[in-house]
């Protein structure tokens, strides 16, 4: 017997040129996982952190206790929001490739996460998203032109040219500022939820984080605070398998599901098929009801796949097989909901094509308007004075002085 200590390095299932391998993803059959009462105690429902809640089977049939029995119009609306998210993403990606915006991040393959979750929440609930949750803006009805103006940092940019493209903020829509440092929104969401509870409101908070970012300390502090104060919050880990080029195993996903971090902190943890619109909706609704009725926070792991590159600056061909997404066992969220609706007799290929064309046009029209407020290198320009506003509520004397000096310099150049 020769047992020695050893260093374990997480295994990456397949590298470029190898056959995709998803044998590591634990699946449960659609409809197979029990749906506990919303008031169940976290410690009594730890199976939810290990199983995978699924409603839609491979044929598009909705099965089991998590079936949310949504109205057909609600399903069609969900499909529309997801498709619009994708069309918008594709258009912005192309726009970046043409050099008309500087940077972009798509949510391809993950649209059900933002769309189904935002639809399952109420408008007064506060959302603390990550940079891959553009779908929440679409569900809440933010005009696309506003998002585009932010991407262009033009004169109608909601962030006034002070923040990276895609880091939107929408105070009126209850969507919080996206952070350039990963994971910071998690403790903030918990604090917002604590405040709502202190004020006796029934609004809840929801936040999203990538599985890679769950390695940050903020994630753990947030879970601890949520647990200690039983804050009315939904904490979502979007496990899309990749953090840029780092496989999820390096964030600890190899040993235990991300949902299982929840029971570790005394919080309900639940693992859901993130590409199944119905399952995501149902699980979010369940978690929201828990939060709203004082049953405490929930950690949801949404199992999905980042089908696109991390951003316009990334090339996944360097680190994973090209045909990975084609073999992903949970499929494409849009295709799956479409299949379900067709099965119900409430959708068709023709209607789908017509909807795509309509949304393409909508996006194009919004872009046309957005560029009238300024483009990267032409058209109306932001006033450099803007850099002195909003540092503080009131402009302090030293900033007044710096602004005057800058104005004088600019006047000299003109």
């Amino acid at each position, binding site marked *: 017997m020769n047992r020695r200590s050893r260093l374990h390095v997480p295994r990456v299932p397949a590298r470029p040129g190898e056959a995709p391998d998803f044998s590591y993803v634990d699946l449960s059959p659609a409809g197979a996982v029990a749906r506990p009462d919303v008031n169940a105690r976290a410690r009594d429902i730890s199976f939810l952190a290990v199983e995978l809640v699924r409603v839609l089977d491979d044929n598009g049939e909705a099965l089991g206790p998590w079936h949310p029995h949504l109205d057909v119009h609600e399903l069609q609306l969900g499909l529309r929001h997801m498709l619009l998210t994708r069309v918008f993403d594709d258009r912005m990606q192309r726009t970046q490739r043409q050099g008309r915006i500087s940077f972009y991040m798509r949510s391809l393959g993950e649209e059900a996460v933002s769309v189904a979750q935002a639809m399952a929440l109420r408008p007064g609930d506060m959302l603390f998203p990550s940079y891959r949750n553009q779908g929440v803006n679409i569900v809440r009805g933010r005009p696309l032109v506003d998002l585009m103006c932010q991407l262009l940092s033009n004169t109608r940019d*909601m962030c006034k040219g002070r923040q990276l493209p895609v880091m939107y*903020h929408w105070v009126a829509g209850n969507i919080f500022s996206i952070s350039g440092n990963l994971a910071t929104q998690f403790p903030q969401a918990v*604090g917002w939820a604590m*405040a709502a509870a202190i004020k006796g409101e029934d609004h809840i*908070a929801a936040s999203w984080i990538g599985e890679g970012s769950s390695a940050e300390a903020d994630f753990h502090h947030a879970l601890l605070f949520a647990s200690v104060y039983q804050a009315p919050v939904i904490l979502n880990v979007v496990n899309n398998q990749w953090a840029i080029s780092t496989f999820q195993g390096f964030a600890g996903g190899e040993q235990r599901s991300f949902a299982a971090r929840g029971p570790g902190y005394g919080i309900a943890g639940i693992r859901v098929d993130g590409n199944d619109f119905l399952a995501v909706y149902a699980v979010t609704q369940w978690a929201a009801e828990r939060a709203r009725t004082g049953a405490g926070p929930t950690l949801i792991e949404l199992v999905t796949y980042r089908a696109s590159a991390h951003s316009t600056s990334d090339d996944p061909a360097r680190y994973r097989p090209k045909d990975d997404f084609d073999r992903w066992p949970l499929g494409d969220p849009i295709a799956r909901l479409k299949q379900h609706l067709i099965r119900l007799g409430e959708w068709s290929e023709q209607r789908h094509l017509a909807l795509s064309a309509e949304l393409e046009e909508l996006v194009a029209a919004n872009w046309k308007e957005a560029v009238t407020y300024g483009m990267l290198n032409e058209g109306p320009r932001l006033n450099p004075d803007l850099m002195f506003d909003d540092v503080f509520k009131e402009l302090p004397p030293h900033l007044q002085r710096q602004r005057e000096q800058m104005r004088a310099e600019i006047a000299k150049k003109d």
Partner: protein
Amino acid sequence: MSEQINTIQALNWALDDAMAADTNVVLFGEELADGEGGGVMKVTAGLSTKYGARVRSTPISEMGFTGAAVGAAVAGLRPVIEIMLMNFVAVCMDQITNHAAKLRFMSGGQTHVPMVIRTMTGSGFQTAGQHSDFLEAWFCHTPGIKVVMPSNPADAYGLLRASIDDEDPVLFIEHFPSYWNPGEAPKRGVSIPLGKARRVQAGSDVTLIGYSRSMLDIPVVAKKLEAAGVSCEIIDLRTVSPLDMETILTSVKKTGRAVVVHEAVRSFGVGAEISARIHESLFRELKAPVERVASQDCPVPFAKQLETAFLYSHADIEAAVRRTLA
């Protein structure tokens, strides 16, 4: 003689009155509630009994409660958090400098974070380099957050009230070695405006500028110099960032000489900034270069002899003044 109280009492009054005046004021921090002792220094004693859940003892997780306070401020509360000792800000620096301080700006003015971060520090109690640094310069170098540093009980009260009412985040740094020093009691309900220095004493030969701890030392040295025929004007900054340059420049224009004194280490400090700004504005009117008196550029040492030698002495202040007069 008017009523005398100490800084602990003054801070407690300020928090109590602010909580009574505005139900959105909440306190987060380690050991704050009465069940946990009402704060390490008892600053929050009695408040949880009076205000219940609005005073929260938290887990030992500065990043957790600072982040939560940012979220609570965005939700419309006015959190006042306590970081037990100033050095511990290092573990929640991101939430303070990248979030609380920047959200108004980076959201295009859509949101803001009206929170107060109370913390305390100061050498002299042999608590060494991870428990007694003055780190105000880190935050003065961060646009978007105000830095307030009171030097006596009445100022502690008035400045804390103003900080809680302010719409921007405020770092409120208390000098704990002088917590128990008695001083004139504040007028309850009256705030002291932020961003305004106080001329403590008028004089004609030299302007002595300080804040927090150094305001204990400057008047003593000034008195001695006065006896030797040197007339000192004394300015207590109260708010270190943004700086009240108007008060400073008005004074130095008159005296032609300035000495800045702080407990924080000398290099890249608040003294350097004030000195630079005085030189930029009054170079031709100065009778001598601006002098800085500060601590040595090393971490606060532990051993008593070292700790004493780390901090400037009264003799250092006097020598600096004399250099400006030479």
